[in-house]
Structures are given as structure tokens and as C-alpha cells.
């Protein structure tokens, strides 16, 4: 990124003052090497977001920011409905409520290594993954409505997991004000056979061991003990969310002129929050959030079944489940005034600090767990929200490593089978139906996640709690 006109406020905070159509500053959180490596498009897209009606405070970019569509991926922006604020389908993304759920197995690394190939085989058999895969469930129209309003609570009521799981899921597993009536027939059809599926691309179910504890107090509070094993599930709202994103991106692009909103680029398509289209999108998006929470709940159940078939008594308690592609209504203090804002986080994780009422009571004193996925076969992190995070970037942090190379380039540089072999020699078992998919997700095609979380910590977005190393990765 060209840093001309970018003012460095502190080691990991860079500010672009408003010029032209910008209503607020654009702020980027990264160290200098990460910032210089970012595409110039991140800057352009962030400045475009800063020009949208009703934006409050600033447009923020996380340390893993990269070129998205409309909003940069790693972008955070809040809008005030009462001051002409907008909601943007591109500001949430196609994979609505994509996120990470982390499960505590209570098993030691040695116990898992002893059954590692058999467990990898069993998980790959039990977890539907990849293009064209289907789940066990076939939803009728009334099942679909119940799922879209009930989220993970619906899944638990259907026998997938335990009521206790819900305490550790964002919004207790159910997003309020979902409107199934705003979800198109096409979106419903795409989801009918896809409940309890992982998807493809960078989605995964990974068995990981806790290789390093950075903050002993918070790690103990979270139940993370060095040498023990966790499972991380990274996926979203599947075909339903993709179709809702598609439907509303088109409708917002077609209707934008009627709202009198000047857009520097069509990809910023949005609608006033207080408009019929804006409200229909929010209702459909919340239904998709419930779909994602239900999906991760079903996958949790399938994962538990696999673990218990090898390790009877394994509990797999939920540490936390948090999304990183969302728009949520949150209370934030802006220049001393408490305001209700529509916060878009596109490839950014909510990170409430200690004491926040939105954090489950059992975790509240430590701050909200922030779950950061690395690339296939590399380390991941658990971070914690920090006091003061609200004043930095609306209690938000990074979400992952971010690609450094195109899929096309990755397939020319690596072969899937060879990668699987090399990772197996390092003790990481990859299971995927597509070797081309494995090559496209090669660890070397991503930025080192370590640099991203270090920058997030130094910028005051979140605190490092534990580093996770993979043992088994089931990919789509």
C-alpha cells in the first residue's frame, strides 16, 4: 500500500484524514510491514466506506485486511439508523455469519496422537465436506422457518448437542428479529440439503493442540491447558447465506439511485436502515445468522459422535462460538453519548472486553474469546477482548491470516498430494475430497497469522491467550 497521506498515530495505528466525499477518517491497524504488503485497493475501499451515509466515528481496517467487494475484508464500520445510516450486503459478505466454534476435548495430545489416523478417517467420514456434499437432514418448509428463527436452539431441540452448549454461543445461539419471510425461495432451496455441511474453500474442522499459553490467567479461565486438544470448526450459513447475499446485492444495486445515495462504486450497494429494503435485508441476514449457528451446532454433534467412538467419555464442551461476517445492533459510546449502532464486521471478529454483558457470565471477567483461524496446517490463536477495545475499533479484532497469493498461482506452485504427504510427515493429517482444493489452500498461499495477531495485540484490539497447532484438518 502506498502510505502517502497516511499518518502514523502509534506503532500499529494509521489514519487517513477525510478528503473528498469521506465523512469520517479511515483507520488501519497494522505494523508497517503488514500495511505495506496490503493491496492499495484496501485503502481505496476503506475510504469509500468512510464516505457512506450515517457512518459513525471512522471506517476501520484490521491487520489482516485485504481487497474485498465494496467493503475490504477485515473492515469494520458502524452506522446510525436515526442519522441516515445504511446497511450494506457487501459489508457483511456472501458467507453471512461465517465464524469459528472452539470445543475443549479435555484430551491430552498424546491420547489423540495414539488414535490420530483412525480419528482423521472417522471425522472425514462423518463430516460432510466439499462441493456437492449434503447433510443428513432434509428440511421441510416449516422445519426451515423454525431453523431460521431458532438457530442453534432449534438444532439442540432437534437432538444436536446440549442445552448447556448455548450459553457459550454468541446471543445464546439464537439471533432475535430474524424474518424468514424475507428469505427467497431460491435461498431456501439452496439450503434444503446443506444443514450440517462444512462447505469448501477456507472452511475446515481442525483438531488442534495447545502448543503455547500466552496469558495463563485467561487461559485457565477459558479451560485452555497447554498440551491439551481442542477442535475448531470454521464455516458459515452455507447456500442460504450465499443466496441471500446474492439476492440483496442485486436489489440494493438496482434500488440505490431511488434512495438518492451517491455511490463511488456500484459494489458499495446499500440501503438506508430505515427503508423497506434495508429492513428486509436485516431480517433475512439475521435468519442466515441463525442458519450458521444451527449449522455449527449440528457439526459439533457430528464431531462429538466421532470422538466418542474412539475416546469414550470425551465431552467436547463449547469454549465459544463467534461470527466474523455480520451486521449487529450494538450499544457504543461515541464522544460520551451512548448510541445504538448497526456495526458491520466483514472478516472481523467481535471482541468485547472484560465485564461486558454480552460475554457469557462464566467468561465475563476474562473478556470474550476471539477465535482466529490460521491457514491449513499452520497455527491458530485464541485471543481475548480487552478493556478499551471499544474505543479503538468498536470492540473488533482480526479474523484470520488472509491470502497472500491467488488460488491460480497456488495451484501452479504446489500439488495437493505432495502437500498432504509433507504435512503428514510433520504430524498434520489433511483429509479432503479435492487435491486441487488442498493446493489452493496451501499454507504458503497465506500470510503468517502470527504477524497478524501480534499486530492486533499491539494495536490494543485483543490480547493473545493461546497458540494452537493442528493435528488433523478436514477440508472441503
Amino acid at each position, binding site marked *: 500500500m502506498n502510505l502517502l497521506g497516511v499518518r502514523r498515530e502509534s506503532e500499529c495505528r494509521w489514519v487517513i484524514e477525510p478528503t473528498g466525499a469521506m465523512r469520517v477518517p479511515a483507520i488501519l491497524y497494522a505494523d508497517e510491514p503488514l500495511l505495506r504488503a496490503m493491496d492499495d485497493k484496501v485503502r481505496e475501499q476503506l475510504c469509500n466506506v468512510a464516505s457512506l451515509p450515517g457512518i459513525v466515528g471512522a471506517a476501520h481496517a484490521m491487520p489482516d485486511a485485504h481487497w474485498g*467487494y465494496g467493503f475490504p475484508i477485515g473492515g469494520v464500520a458502524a452506522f446510525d439508523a436515526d442519522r441516515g445510516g445504511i446497511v450494506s450486503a457487501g459489508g457483511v459478505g456472501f*458467507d453471512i455469519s461465517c465464524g469459528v466454534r472452539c470445543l475443549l476435548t479435555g484430551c491430552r495430545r498424546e491420547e489423540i496422537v495414539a488414535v490420530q489416523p483412525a480419528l482423521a478417517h472417522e471425522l472425514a467420514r462423518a463430516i460432510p465436506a466439499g462441493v*456437492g456434499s449434503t447433510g443428513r437432514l432434509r428440511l421441510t418448509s416449516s422445519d426451515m422457518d423454525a431453523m431460521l428463527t431458532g438457530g442453534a436452539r432449534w438444532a439442540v431441540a432437534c437432538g444436536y448437542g446440549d442445552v448447556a452448549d448455548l450459553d457459550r454461543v454468541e446471543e445464546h445461539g439464537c439471533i432475535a428479529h430474524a424474518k424468514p419471510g424475507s428469505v427467497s425461495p431460491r435461498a431456501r432451496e439452496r439450503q434444503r440439503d446443506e444443514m450440517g455441511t462444512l462447505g469448501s474453500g477456507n472452511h475446515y474442522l481442525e483438531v488442534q493442540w495447545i502448543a503455547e499459553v500466552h496469558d495463563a490467567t485467561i487461559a485457565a479461565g477459558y479451560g485452555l491447558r497447554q498440551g491439551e486438544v481442542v477442535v475448531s470448526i470454521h464455516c458459515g450459513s452455507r447456500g442460504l447465506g*450465499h443466496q441471500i447475499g446474492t439476492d440483496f446485492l442485486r436489489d440494493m444495486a438496482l434500488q440505490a439511485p431511488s434512495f438518492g445515495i451517491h455511490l463511488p462504486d456500484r459494489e458499495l450497494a446499500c440501503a438506508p436502515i430505515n427503508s423497506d429494503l434495508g429492513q428486509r435485508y436485516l431480517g433475512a441476514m439475521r435468519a442466515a445468522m441463525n442458519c450458521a449457528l444451527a449449522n455449527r451446532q449440528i457439526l459439533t454433534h457430528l464431531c462429538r459422535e466421532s470422538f466418542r467412538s474412539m475416546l469414550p467419555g470425551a465431552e467436547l464442551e463449547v469454549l465459544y462460538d463467534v461470527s466474523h461476517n455480520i451486521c449487529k445492533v450494538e450499544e457504543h459510546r461515541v464522544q460520551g453519548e451512548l448510541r445504538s449502532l448497526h456495526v458491520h464486521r466483514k472478516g472481523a471478529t467481535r471482541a468485547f472486553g472484560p465485564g461486558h454483558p454480552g460475554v457469557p457470565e462464566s467468561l465475563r471477567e476474562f473478556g470474550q474469546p476471539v477465535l482466529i483461524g490460521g491457514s491449513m496446517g499452520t497455527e491458530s490463536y485464541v485471543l481475548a477482548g480487552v478493556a478499551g477495545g471499544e474505543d479503538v475499533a468498536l470492540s473488533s479484532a482480526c479474523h484470520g491470516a488472509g491470502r497472500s497469493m491467488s*488460488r491460480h498461482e497456488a495451484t501452479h506452485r504446489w500439488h495437493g498430494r505432495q502437500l498432504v504427504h509433507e504435512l503428514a510427515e510433520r504430524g498434520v493429517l489433511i483429509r479432503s475430497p479435492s487435491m486441487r482444493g488442498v493446493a489452493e489452500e496451501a499454507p504458503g498461499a497465506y500470510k503468517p497469522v502470527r504477524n497478524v495477531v501480534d499486530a492486533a495485540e499491539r494495536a490494543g484490539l485483543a490480547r493473545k491467550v493461546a497458540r494452537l497447532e493442528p493435528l488433523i484438518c478436514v477440508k472441503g
Partner: protein
Amino acid sequence: MGDWQHFGHGADIGVRGRGSTLAEAFAAAAVGLTAVVTDPAQVNPLESVHVECTVPDRELLLHEWLNSLVFLMATRRMLFSRFDVRVAGDRLEADAWGEPIDVARHAPAVEVKGATLTELAVRKEPDGRWLAQCVVDV
């Protein structure tokens, strides 16, 4: 297979089709869409699905066309390799030819979530040929 190519876009992929007519460019972009998932040469055009879209904007018509194919790939669990496309005004009709996904043979790399408005362009180039392109989210 048509005159198509991919172009880079961070985490996602751009698909671009060219042709002597608008319809040819739309068909070539569709082959590029399949190539995101698998090698189009491995997809046998055994059965066809009829597609119709009407959008009062040429660029959004391309967006709708590609998204119709994304929907068909997802719900019919098919891949397509041949596209007979007709465009008249704001209306597109097409027959997409392909076959059910065979995971072993097609080794599908990634599912396409949707066509975006990013880098969306439909235009006649200085050489008189048509270009149709956009970024797709994977």
C-alpha cells in the same frame, strides 16, 4: 470452450469472457465460472438446463446470469461446460449443458458462493469484440 480467462482478486477470483457478440462473451464468462471449480474439459455436456433472466441493465444481466448458474450448480449438484446463450435487449435465454458432479473425476476445488459487483464490466472493446467480467466469491 470459448475465450475465457481468470484475473486475480485477493482471496477471490475474477472471471472474464470475450466474444464476437455479447452472447458469446457471456457464454465464455460462464466457462470461466466452471473453471473456478474444475477443468471444463472434464465436464461432459450430457444434459441441458434452460435458463432465463431479465434485468434492465446489461452489467447486472451478466451478474444475474452467472448467479443463475451458481444456483443450478448448487441445487442440481451439476457442472456445466457448454452454453448456448441468446441475448435480446434486457433478456437472456440460454441452455447450459453439463453433467452431475463426480467428485472423483472432477475433483471440484471450491464452490462458488456468488458473483459480485466487483470489477463488473460488460463492454465492446476497441477491437470490436465484447468483454464480460466480474469477481466471484469462493
